[in-house]
């Protein structure tokens, strides 16, 4: 396949999977067809809280073309959940949200399967619906899980009735700090839930051969998916193989374990391969991965000179009906609510609250964009209270290299101050604008996740390389960038490396495309694996060139003797020699950096989120225009400055920021889930849940502050996929607040909410 022609300059960085994707030849999970394959459909609860009185699948089973109908009676009686084991594959006694699965059907085609689903009879006895986050915490609230106390869970979780995970971060004495303040500013904010919305709806194909099952699935986390199948179907790892074809985006929505076990169980029962493909509506209502709604109460004490003396935050997150991977969100949200600021006295308390909504879970920087929105809106209110410019206020109070953050972590070299300078300068902050326009500024942060990860690298006899990695490519290009790391280590062009990835039976473990961790951890593994081959090559070259291995330099496809450029041998030739002897094979994992220390703080419900390895920082400065007559806000320009360490793949990195910023604009203005009085989603479709279009997207300036970060990934790289999603909505909020003279206290800041705020404000003035 021709990608370049000689008359054009070399492309900057063309993805290895690019040609597959632009020609349509790349296969995604829903594109796979196996001989004899059946179609799967699920029967959903629809009711949001009810006891199942009758569940009759006999009519469905009797329908021609139906090969299997499964309920919880047909699978092992296993409760699962990474933090709280509060869920089963199918609801048995009680349903707790509209998208809960009661039964699954495999039939000759999707239409037949759907008719069978429609023939399943369910009768309910209604239970009281928990539809309000704060109300769920009151003593007299109905319980979402009456048997919560008996559920297994992670030991450190602090659980109580509807509170699935309480966390606090405390430092100093907040009461004393407030007493020492000249002003105390209190704010309340409410963020609605929203969705990841990858353009590819999820799909799963399962096929049994003997007692082993191969599952092709659109997951971001194949090893996690395998663990889920093994746990719920009581199978050993050795009998389950997960393969991920091309993945059409995830944004966290395809993290965790989703339906792989349901489809595998159907395929086993039907004795046929089975394929599940979600509709867009199912994609909205069923998965336990939805960005959580959060209610916030902030209180910050500040001196007249602008110094923050204390901060107290109370917040409650909508866990939804089951805990999924949100167990650590309370502590993560607590950190984000305190923010990247120097605060001597801090207390954040966070509750993860069961409701009868769709379960929450990791969506791109979970808890961060909405918490940054609330905190940074509050921060502008604090700055206003003392008459200080909000950017100057941030410069004064934001953390910096060597400074101590709100949880007692002292930071090494970090670039938050440089981010503020770069973004505000690029935006022209301070310029005179029309009175319906303003520039809002916000800062954000996000951890790098330090976890184990592995890779193999091999060089074949013709000198071509393969990277065999457990890392998962979800579109970000992080796996694509691994080629560059191996190539640089071995002095070879990146194009000489092929990637073999996304197969749990082939590659070593990796956590998956989650937590922006691919380059950070798997990059280290690839460098280590390539390093082993580099050593082999140096030894081989030393023999051939009669030099010392220490003097061999690998560059430009050659192994040469340092200082004698004419004494060299091509790596291809060395590979040919190695093919007749000790093969060129490397394996790597590397030791993940350990957790940083915190001093002087105490945490309840500590899941390791109060101290961050190689934290990433950002500042977004956004110019916004508001139509005062209608409340419609439009983003005119975004400047995004990021400290994500060393940037290895610049074009890919820019793409991460541009995409995340646009997602942030959607979250700010048009993307929010609304519920009816029973907790059902009212806007589970793309016409009513509005993503930003190409026509809405503003120019986005991207600036990278590249500094020497301690404990970073390969070459000083940190993560990047989530960080740029953090500060955009917050910066937009501050611009809108500047135009309106008052913040909009609910996210998304829809046109109607902006207009309502204008009405309220005018009412207050008159």
């Amino acid at each position, binding site marked *: 396949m021709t990608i370049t022609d000689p008359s054009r300059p070399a492309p900057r960085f063309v993805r290895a999977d690019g040609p597959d994707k632009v020609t349509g030849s790349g296969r995604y999970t829903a594109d796979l067809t196996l001989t004899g394959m059946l179609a799967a459909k699920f029967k959903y609860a629809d009711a949001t809280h009810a006891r199942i009185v009758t569940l009759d699948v006999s009519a469905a089973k009797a329908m021609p073309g139906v090969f299997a109908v499964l309920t919880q009676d047909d699978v092992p009686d296993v409760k699962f959940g990474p933090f709280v084991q509060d869920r089963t594959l199918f609801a048995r006694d009680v349903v707790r949200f509209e998208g809960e699965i009661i039964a699954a059907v495999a039939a000759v085609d999707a239409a037949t399967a759907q008719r069978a689903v429609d023939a399943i009879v369910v009768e309910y006895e209604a239970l009281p619906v928990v539809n309000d986050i704060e109300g769920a915490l009151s003593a007299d609230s109905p319980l979402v899980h009456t048997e919560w106390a008996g559920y297994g869970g992670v030991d450190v979780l602090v659980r109580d009735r509807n509170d699935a995970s309480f966390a606090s971060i405390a430092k100093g004495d907040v009461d004393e700090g407030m007493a020492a303040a000249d002003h105390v500013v209190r704010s309340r904010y409410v963020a609605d839930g929203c969705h990841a919305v990858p353009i590819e709806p999820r799909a799963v194909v399962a096929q049994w051969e003997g007692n082993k099952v191969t599952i092709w699935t659109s997951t971001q986390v194949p090893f996690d998916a395998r663990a889920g199948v093994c746990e719920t179907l009581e199978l050993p790892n050795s009998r389950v193989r997960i393969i991920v074809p091309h993945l059409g985006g995830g944004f966290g929505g395809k993290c965790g374990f989703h339906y792989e076990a349901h489809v595998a169980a159907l395929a086993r029962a039907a004795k046929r391969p089975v394929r599940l493909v979600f509709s867009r509506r199912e994609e909205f209502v069923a998965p336990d991965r939805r960005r959580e709604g959060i209610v916030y109460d902030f209180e910050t004490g500040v001196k007249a000179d602008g110094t923050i003396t204390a901060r107290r935050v109370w917040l409650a997150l909508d866990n939804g009906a089951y805990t999924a991977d949100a167990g650590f969100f309370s502590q993560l949200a607590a950190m984000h609510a305190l923010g990247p600021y120097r605060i001597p006295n801090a207390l954040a308390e966070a509750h993860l609250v069961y409701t009868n909504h769709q379960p929450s879970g990791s969506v791109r920087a979970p808890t961060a964009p909405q918490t940054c929105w609330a905190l940074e809106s509050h921060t502008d209110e604090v700055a206003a209270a003392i008459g200080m410019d909000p950017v100057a206020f941030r410069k004064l109070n934001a953390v910096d290299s060597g400074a101590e953050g709100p949880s007692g972590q002292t930071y090494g070299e970090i670039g938050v101050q440089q981010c503020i300078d770069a973004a505000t300068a690029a935006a022209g902050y301070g310029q005179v604008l029309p009175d319906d326009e303003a520039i809002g500024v916000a800062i954000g942060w996000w951890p790098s996740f330090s976890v184990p990860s592995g890779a193999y690298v091999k060089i074949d006899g013709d000198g071509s390389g393969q990277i065999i990695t457990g890392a998962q490519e979800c579109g970000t290009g992080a796996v694509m960038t691994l080629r560059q790391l191996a190539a640089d280590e071995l002095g070879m062009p990146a194009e000489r490396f092929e990637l073999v990835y996304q197969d749990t039976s082939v590659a070593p473990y990796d956590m998956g495309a989650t937590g922006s961790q691919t380059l950070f951890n798997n990059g280290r593994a690839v460098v280590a694996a390539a390093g082993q081959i580099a050593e082999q090559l140096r030894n081989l070259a030393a023999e051939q060139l009669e030099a010392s291995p220490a003097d061999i330099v690998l560059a430009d496809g050659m192994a040469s003797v340092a200082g004698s450029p004419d004494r060299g041998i091509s790596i291809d030739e060395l590979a040919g020699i190695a093919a007749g002897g000790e093969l060129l094979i490397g394996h790597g994992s590397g030791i993940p950096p350990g957790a940083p220390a915190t001093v002087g703080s105490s945490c309840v419900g500590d899941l390791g989120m109060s101290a961050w390895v190689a934290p990433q920082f950002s500042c977004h400065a956004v110019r916004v*225009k*508001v*139509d005062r*007559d*209608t409340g*419609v806000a*439009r983003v*005119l*320009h975004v400047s995004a400055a990021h400290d994500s360490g060393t940037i290895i793949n610049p074009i890919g990195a820019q793409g991460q920021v541009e995409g995340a910023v646009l997602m942030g604009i959607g979250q700010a*203005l*048009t993307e929010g889930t*609304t519920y009816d009085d029973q907790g059902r989603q*009212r*806007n589970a479709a793309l*016409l*009513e849940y*509005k993503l*930003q*279009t*190409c*026509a*809405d997207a*503003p*120019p986005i300036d991207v600036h990278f502050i590249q500094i020497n970060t301690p404990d970073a990934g390969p070459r000083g790289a940190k993560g990047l996929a989530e960080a740029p999603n953090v500060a955009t909505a917050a910066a937009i909020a501050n611009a809108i607040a500047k135009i309106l003279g008052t913040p909009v206290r609910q996210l998304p800041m*829809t*046109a*109607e909410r902006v*207009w*309502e705020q204008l009405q309220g404000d005018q009412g207050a003035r008159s």
Partner: protein
Amino acid sequence: MSFAIARTIDEALAGLAAGARPIAGGTDLVVGARHGKAPLPDDLVAIDRLDELKTVTRTALGVSIGALVSHHDIETHPLLTSIYAGLADGSALVGSPSTRHVGTLGGNIMNGSPAMDTGAPLAVMGAEVELRSLRGTRRVPVEQLWVGPGRTCAAPDELCVAVHIPAPPARAGSAYVRLEYRRAMEIAVVGAAAVVTLADDGAVATLAVALTAVAPIILSVTGLDALVGLGVSGAAAAVGEMAATQATPISDVRASDRYRRHTVGVMARRAVEAAARRAGGETIAIPVNRAIGIGAPS
């Protein structure tokens, strides 16, 4: 069940007489069926190849637009984008570029949605719909065509073959403006169309305004004769208030009734202002939504 591709209008009419439903681009019909709003009709007659229904013809009285003229054709047609700019404004806002290529004027108005973007412009222009069946042909003013949400007065065997719009008088201009939360891929939350004729002194000589998505059908604002003789800004402000008063909006997931009532007034005022500017000879790019105000390119 049956499917036939009509080669002539008569074939199509025979199909309708036998109980089939017409399908042109199918955008509303197929999407509606997939969403379970209404099953796909059992018997379909495809009318999308009737080239004689794809013409825009200038007549002595005005213009005749074939029912199968696409929104894309309308938004780019030299005559329609100049003299009937308000209609082009509406077509240019429909759905996406692909919807505008596939979607037809006839389909839009016969679907009868109160949120249709071409309805209000046609109403203020005094358009008539030509309905044909094997029994004969009749013309119906568009305002009498729509009888409820998704319902028209057309009999099942009648096919919309054309829309006829009278020529506007001298010094007339039209515009259609809608509220949108994004700059593309929207459905009208509310909208308003206006035709304004200016007197020699710049005052409003005639005025017609119709509203989108604030009533079960496209709603024509009444009582506008009282505004004749006012200056444009005064008339526009008054129209805004009258529109807000006369609207009977619902609350749904897109907006509350209160917000709709307010914003339809804003849209009505802006439609009158834009129409008056066009009446005064100014060219405002199609669609006016993107040329003015918040929707303007940065």
